[in-house]
């Protein structure tokens, strides 16, 4: 059973229908007691980093997520949900994140080092380069195209948490990140056709395997 964390941010319909399509049982809840009963957590999110952290704080979900992941419960963050896993973001003023992974979140500069202007958001289908093929989300998958929509991007000095990247202009975009049972995708797997659906299936399988351990 997957618990989709509902904290009032963004469109949860597409994640729900994606899990339905792969016949994965889930609950959608903002209540820590209900989410506690699940085997893995999915943190979605569309909107601003600051609003999201405020919502998570008000609902008591920050402490819950930290405690559950400390106890080894698998967690996947999607899009903004992935960015929230990191230490801080400069979106609408410096805001602390969940701090589960090392790194910070900054806006795309919109200009390359050579001074060429490029479009922000990074929107559309971009191909992945796998940096860690054995990362649980990537198992058995080929480097395919996935759908991105984001204006902010993770920067980290710790290459160990980068499982896959995409190149946008002169920026290496962390696309799949993770350490142990905590992972995330900058793109929307539920909107990324077969490659994305494959990663959701991999996460569900990882959760199932964790239950048996």
């Amino acid at each position, binding site marked *: 059973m997957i618990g989709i964390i509902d904290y009032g941010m963004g469109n949860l319909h597409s994640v729900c229908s994606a899990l339905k399509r792969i016949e994965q049982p889930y609950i959608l809840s903002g209540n820590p007691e209900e989410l506690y009963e699940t085997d893995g957590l999915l943190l979605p999110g*569309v909107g601003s980093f600051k609003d999201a952290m405020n919502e998570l704080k008000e609902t008591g979900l920050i402490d819950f997520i930290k405690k559950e992941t400390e106890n080894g419960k698998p967690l996947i963050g999607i899009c903004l949900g992935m960015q929230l896993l990191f230490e801080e973001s400069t979106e609408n003023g410096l805001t602390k994140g969940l701090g589960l992974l090392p790194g910070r979140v900054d806006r795309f500069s919109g200009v390359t080092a050579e001074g060429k202007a490029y479009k922000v958001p990074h*929107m559309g289908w971009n191909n992945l380069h796998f940096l860690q093929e054995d990362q649980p989300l990537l198992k058995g998958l080929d480097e395919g195209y996935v*759908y991105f929509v984001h204006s902010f991007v993770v920067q980290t000095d710790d290459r160990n948490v980068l499982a896959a990247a995409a190149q*946008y202009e002169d920026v290496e975009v962390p696309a799949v990140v993770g350490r142990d049972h905590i992972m995330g995708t900058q793109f929307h797997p539920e909107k990324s056709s077969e490659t994305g659906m494959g990663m959701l299936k991999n996460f569900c399988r990882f959760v199932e395997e964790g239950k048996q351990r």
Partner: protein
Amino acid sequence: MLTKRIIPCLDVKEGRVVKGIQFLNLVDAGDPVELARFYDKAGADELVFLDISASHEGRDTMVEVVERVAAELAIPFTVGGGINKLEDMKRVLRAGADKVSVNTAAILRPELISEGSDYFGAQCIVVAIDAKYDEELGSWRVYTHGGRKPTQWEVTEWAQEAVKRGAGEILLTSMDKDGEKSGFNLALTKAVSEAVTVPVIASGGAGNADHFYDAFTEGKADAGLAASIFHYKDTSIGELKSELQKLGVSVR
């Protein structure tokens, strides 16, 4: 590398997909859910649904169709037509759409763009612009109400205003070219694409792969949208993409 997107557009009237030649003669071309499934499998990068009856008659967009499409589709889709207020955006996005597009309502009340953008984020808000060349203006004039009413806006000025207010993407239709299958309006597309910092979807006039190639290179578009050439199977998306790839355009 970020690819250029190919986006079939499904103009929907009373739950059926139609496509008019220059916004007029409507021909029935199929069921929206059926077509969505078909295009997803065929390799479409996104889909756009425009409820063309809604902006004329103030009719509500068909939420039920959106829900059915959302349950089937593993690619993003945009819904437009009849989005007049924040409540309309909420209804469509909660039914499962990834983006909403606003056209006439945004011209009449530009605050609508910022309201939507503040609430859902810019990535959810597409501003659709219908433009037609105007001798007097020496540029392209923006039209509303399905291309029937001229406005005071010059197209690049309106596009910049829309982005300033929080549009995440511009869907730009050339009324001069729409339905002609003679190629996108490259000068118009280039002018708008260079004027804004967000992606621009070229629309109106697609007839073959060369037209898309021109829109992506000379026109500087980020995506190309078409309806009739896909619906009537003049060109399949697979064929179009392999042609583009041969021409050196990066596609999925």
